[in-house]
């Protein structure tokens, strides 16, 4: 038996707990955060319950159906165009008045609405009492009390939603905001103007369309023009006449007057259903903000938090990283002993383990970093960071809000670039997208740790902090340049809500970490594994190489000559001489492998790249590693693992292999600078394309960052050489 399917949309103000309820209903683990704009794209989940297949849609938060930014447009368009069977309006009970504003607008679209009075527990502690029965009666719609984070009332909510979807109530007759005489007059005149003309068929319900046109809603106006064609222009003209009329009558723009009237309607409802018992309310968040956003203390505290985040990532991450490292080594050695020599063994040890193993050890660091970012998000500190960074962001003509994507960029650029949807100005968005990749993402972290760990062992933490910091500085400089050239624009009016501070839910933090680990392991099993195999194959073939010297003959002759020496020494010095022999053979062996590597396919690719990277102090292996980093930044480490490890006989760690190569601390630094700036990974490039919707900007982003990377690394390396480092 096929189930009947229903679509249920979750709408509501930002931070009213939509995603928490969504997760509770669907059992999925969407990311929940405590800052406006966590959900920037609608999310779908399907559950079977009570004999129905329920498609639940989690919409981005909106304050009204008058959208200002992209994520708000996403939410409105879904409700309007997809016509869900039921819209559940999640109402923050402690912010009833404002929540009802969106509710009155949802009612105006004539869709079936159900209220979930969420966070009723918070409201109760604030001494707020809401008469739900009365509210339900006044607005003529079902209401369910829910507590999202304790998943109370969720089943009842679903039951009521199904009930409502199956009922055939006529929503158009339900109680709506009635505007004053003059506005209603204009609405009915416009309605008869439209109905007189049978050619006009509006894209949405008539009353709602008229109201939106009177409110000068640009998107609705365009849709009407598109759908109705020439007649549409007449409608718009007629609306314009009424707009002027009303504006003169009320001495204000009609949208403002209508908004006031809606609030008037709400005030009437509130009077009947809303009571506060205690007058004296203590707002803890306000008190915390007095300190954390303080004009003197706020910023230093913020810097301390960021510093602490990186310190935790490195110092605490070292221990589990060592355990993993030992594990990988043990695995590699025991596999070496178990398997007979073959191409497969070579592939497993020098390809897969060298490639994947060299990256997987960084899982703890990455988890700690994401844990810290999740803490910022869930406590509500994220928006405060945006406020504190505002002064600095203003240097490039951006609001502090643009710093939220940048801070997320420390984790991963893909969600960071998606997060720019909360920015209202198109130019601000593009500018933020262009500079966000300079925030070192977690995939670049392994590269830094490997290189600093080897070449700057004692000062590793500080060097990495400097690299991150350099990323921020360069982002700001580049932003400043673009702002004054390509993306000129004035400051847009700015207002952002600061969510209340909340104690983060352990469940939510675990979801963050689990998601991240899953993604990381998936990457390891997928793109990194394949990449490692490809790189190994390219470096291990062709098998039959024409060597410039006959190594085997040379080794034999060396062995023979030492053997005679051992015999001559008559057992006295034999151990010492044997050591010498081993060293001589190892040297020859290394030269042979090095030549083999250079003549492999990989080596040939590397040779082509070599001239590009030589001025940066990076050899062909490094060049190849950087090239493979386009697929995913972790692969840079994998490639280095495969290429450098294959050469150094006896040194089974990348550390020894790198130390014995030509790389110096200076060239390592140049390489890190290059990694910091050069083109983002393929997933990020795809996201940039999707979010800017422009091929031109994507190409620009890739080109300028790579050019900048080359120039910066060149300056570091050549400058350092001149200084004699």
């Amino acid at each position, binding site marked *: 038996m096929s189930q009947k399917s229903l679509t249920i949309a979750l709408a509501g103000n930002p931070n009213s707990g939509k995603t928490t309820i969504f997760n509770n209903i669907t059992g999925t683990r969407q990311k929940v955060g405590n800052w406006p704009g966590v959900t920037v794209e609608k999310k779908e989940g399907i559950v079977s319950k009570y004999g129905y297949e329920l498609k639940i849609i989690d919409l981005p938060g909106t304050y009204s159906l008058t959208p200002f930014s992209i994520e708000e447009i996403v939410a409105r368009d879904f409700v309007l165009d997809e016509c869900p069977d039921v819209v559940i309006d999640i109402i923050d009970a402690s912010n009833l008045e404002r929540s009802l504003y969106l509710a009155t607008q949802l009612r105006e679209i004539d869709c079936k609405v159900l209220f979930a009075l969420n966070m009723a527990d918070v409201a109760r502690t604030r001494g707020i009492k809401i008469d739900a029965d009365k509210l339900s009666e006044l607005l003529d719609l079902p209401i369910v009390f829910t507590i999202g984070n304790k998943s109370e009332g969720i089943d009842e909510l679903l039951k009521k939603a199904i009930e409502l979807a199956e009922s055939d109530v006529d929503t158009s007759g339900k109680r709506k905001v009635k505007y004053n005489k003059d506005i209603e007059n204009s609405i009915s005149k416009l309605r008869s103007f439209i109905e007189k003309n049978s050619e006009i068929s509006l894209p949405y319900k008539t009353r709602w369309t008229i109201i939106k046109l009177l409110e000068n809603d640009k998107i609705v106006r365009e849709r009407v023009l598109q759908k109705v064609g020439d007649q549409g222009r007449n409608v718009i003209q007629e609306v314009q006449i009424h707009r002027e009329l009303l504006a003169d009558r009320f001495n204000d723009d009609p949208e403002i007057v209508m908004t006031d009237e809606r609030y008037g309607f709400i005030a009437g409802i509130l009077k009947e259903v809303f009571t506060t018992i205690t007058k004296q309310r203590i707002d803890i968040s306000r008190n915390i903000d007095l300190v954390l956003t303080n004009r003197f203390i706020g910023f230093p505290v913020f810097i301390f938090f960021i510093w602490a985040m990186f310190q935790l990532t490195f110092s605490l991450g070292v221990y589990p990283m060592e355990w993993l490292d030992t594990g990988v080594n043990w695995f590699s050695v025991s596999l070496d002993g178990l398997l007979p020599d073959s191409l497969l063994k070579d592939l497993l040890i020098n390809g897969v383990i060298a490639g994947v193993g060299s990256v997987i050890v960084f899982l703890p660091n990455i988890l700690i970093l994401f844990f810290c970012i999740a803490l910022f998000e869930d406590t509500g500190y994220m928006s405060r960071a945006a406020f504190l960074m505002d002064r600095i962001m203003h240097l490039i003509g951006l609001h502090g809000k643009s710093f939220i994507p940048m801070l997320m960029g420390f984790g991963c650029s893909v969600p960071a670039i998606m997060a720019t949807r909360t920015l209202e100005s198109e130019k601000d968005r593009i500018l933020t997208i262009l500079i966000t990749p300079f925030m070192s993402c977690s995939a670049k972290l392994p590269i830094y740790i490997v290189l600093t760990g080897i070449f700057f062992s004692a000062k590793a933490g500080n060097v990495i902090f400097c690299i991150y910091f350099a990323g921020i500085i360069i982002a700001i400089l580049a932003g400043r340049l673009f702002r004054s050239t390509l993306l000129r624009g004035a400051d847009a009016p700015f*207002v952002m809500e600061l969510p209340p501070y909340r104690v983060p839910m352990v469940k939510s933090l675990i979801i963050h970490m689990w998601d991240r680990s899953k993604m990381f392991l998936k990457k390891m099993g997928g793109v990194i594994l394949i990449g490692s195999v490809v790189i190994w194959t390219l470096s291990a073939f062709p098998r039959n190489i024409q060597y410039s010297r006959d190594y085997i003959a040379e080794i034999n002759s060396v062995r023979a000559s030492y053997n005679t020496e051992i015999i001559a020494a008559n057992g006295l010095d034999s151990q010492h001489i044997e050591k010498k022999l081993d060293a001589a053979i190892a040297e020859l062996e290394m030269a042979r492998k090095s030549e083999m590597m250079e003549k492999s396919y990989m080596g040939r690719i590397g040779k082509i790249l070599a001239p590009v990277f030589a001025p940066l102090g990076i050899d062909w292996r490094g060049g190849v590693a950087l090239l493979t980093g386009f697929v995913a930044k972790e692969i840079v480490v994998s490639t280095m693992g495969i290429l450098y490890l294959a050469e150094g006989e006896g040194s089974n760690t990348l550390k020894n292999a790198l130390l014995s190569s030509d790389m110096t601390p200076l060239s390592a630094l140049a390489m890190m600078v290059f990694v910091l700036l050069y083109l983002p990974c393929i997933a990020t490039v795809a996201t940039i394309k999707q979010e800017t919707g422009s091929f031109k900007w994507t190409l620009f982003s890739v080109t300028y960052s790579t050019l900048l990377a080359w120039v910066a690394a060149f300056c570091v390396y050549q400058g350092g050489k001149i200084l004699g480092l």
Partner: protein
Amino acid sequence: MKQNHNNNHVREKEQFKKLFKQEHIDNFEERFKVFEIFLQTKRHVTVSELLELLNENGYQLDSSFVRDTLKLMCRFGFAKKIQFEDGPVRYEHRHLGRHHDHMICTKCRNIIEFEDQQLENLQIQIAAARGFHMLQHKMEIYGICSNCLKTRMHPMSLVMAKQGERLIIKDFTGGAGARMRLLTMGLRVGDELDGITSPSKGQMVIAVDCRRYVIGRGLAQKVLVEPRKN
């Protein structure tokens, strides 16, 4: 008489320039154009009529901008709002009396007339000393009247709010878009707010009820507030 009239207009324009610049009002050039055209009108105009006149003179301006400018002009005493029973709102040029000097309160728009013979004489002396033949004079002193000063009832912009100051929102200026944003986010006239952080530059933090907002400086300038009495 005609010349006299023009003289008045020139002087008013000077005052307009001085006052608007002193108060750092944005888009000065456009607002000045609105003022110039407004001065040329003889009757009571509505915003749309004025907009049409501006159009005829080749200025393409937005109606909500013109309305905002007219409101500012009322605030500074250049224009007066009138509305006949249920009709549209009209604005008229404020014709000030000829025979008196005036003190004009920019906050409550109250006009205080005064006459001082000493001052009159002094003006004649000054003009005479420079060989200037005086035909007519008009003396207007702009400021805040004693009433407004006493009760501190003048709305100030939110930008001036200090940390911990308890205020109430009195009005919004500026375009409809910005105001809609504030309204839908739950910031309305009559709301009581507390200053949380107000740096000398950049954004500020305010608290309304149990909500907190970050507001950009430009937008805060458009929110008019008054100290709250307890």
